[in-house]
């Protein structure tokens, strides 16, 4: 299968805006998605913003993403300041990343072995919580901004303060994205 040319920058600041944030121009995304797939769901999955949120561009908000004959950037789809805030990621140190990867692999293996492809929810939340602590450097704006102490994890109190604004699902979403932001070099980044 052909590799996709990486169009993000290796040293760009990694930022994340929740999928549920009102700052996303959902009217534009849905209108474009309607042309990309037979159903809205299929179109959304083919939309560049969806790929961006999945971490394909390592959360470089200016990365050029193909859309038909032209290119777009995730930042073009934002209207105003993010209501939940702008999460700034940092690379999870290699040792911790290795531990998280091992936990992730174990979760997937267990799910496969049990025959029920669902990941254990409690284990997944705990995994995302740890990835959040290690991989988020700062939350700018929104109702509960914070900044992690240099070289140290985000205190639990700061993460818990976010629960009223997005619940467990926000922590899972952002924690998982922080884990993806620290993934190893991809096949396409290596062109191999």
């Amino acid at each position: 299968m052909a590799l996709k040319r990486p169009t993000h920058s290796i040293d760009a600041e990694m930022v994340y805006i929740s999928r549920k944030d009102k700052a996303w121009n959902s009217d534009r995304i849905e209108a474009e998605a309607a042309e990309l797939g037979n159903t809205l769901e299929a179109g959304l999955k083919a939309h560049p913003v969806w790929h961006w949120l999945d971490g394909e561009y390592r959360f470089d908000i200016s990365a050029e993403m193909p859309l038909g004959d032209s290119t777009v950037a995730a930042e073009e789809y934002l209207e105003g300041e993010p209501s939940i805030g702008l999460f700034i990621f940092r690379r999870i140190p290699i040792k911790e990343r290795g531990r998280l990867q091992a936990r992730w692999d174990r979760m997937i293996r267990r799910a496969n072995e049990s025959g029920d492809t669902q990941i254990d929810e409690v284990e997944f939340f705990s995994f995302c919580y740890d990835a959040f602590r290690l991989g988020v450097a700062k939350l700018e704006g929104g109702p509960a901004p914070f900044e992690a102490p240099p070289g140290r994890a985000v205190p639990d109190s700061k993460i818990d303060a976010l629960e009223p604004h997005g619940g467990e699902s926000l922590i899972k979403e952002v924690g998982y994205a922080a884990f993806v932001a620290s993934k190893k070099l991809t096949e396409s980044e290596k062109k191999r």
Partner: protein
Amino acid sequence: MAYFDCELTGCLLEGGHRLRTRMGCRLPGLGHPRARFEPHAHGDLHASQGLTIIKNGVIKAAPEDPEDGCPGSWVRSRFAKSFARYQRARAEGGMRVQNPLITPDTDDLILEALRYFEREHEGGEGRYRQQRSEQSSG
């Protein structure tokens, strides 16, 4: 980058659209190049740019998968350009010259990319030397 000079091939000239399609160009603005992509044209590109040296028997380039598109668009990608400033030049004798951007605080991903790039670079040089030696002994 000089090996895949898009201006030299004529890809960036007016009317170069068809040629870019043929080469499998992945630079923006071409739409869906895979529709009329001709993988064999990629080999022509290598030959025209002096990379496949089967004719004069000096270097054989590491194989590129034509399906990935023309390497010219890869070396011009934002990723490759952003990484270029972290690369370490080679000094005489093969040692790497220190790059002030590489410090103990440098991002792990950049260090990983640097190790990967240097290993591939050295592997390529090894293949080149081996071929030279096989040609001179044959």
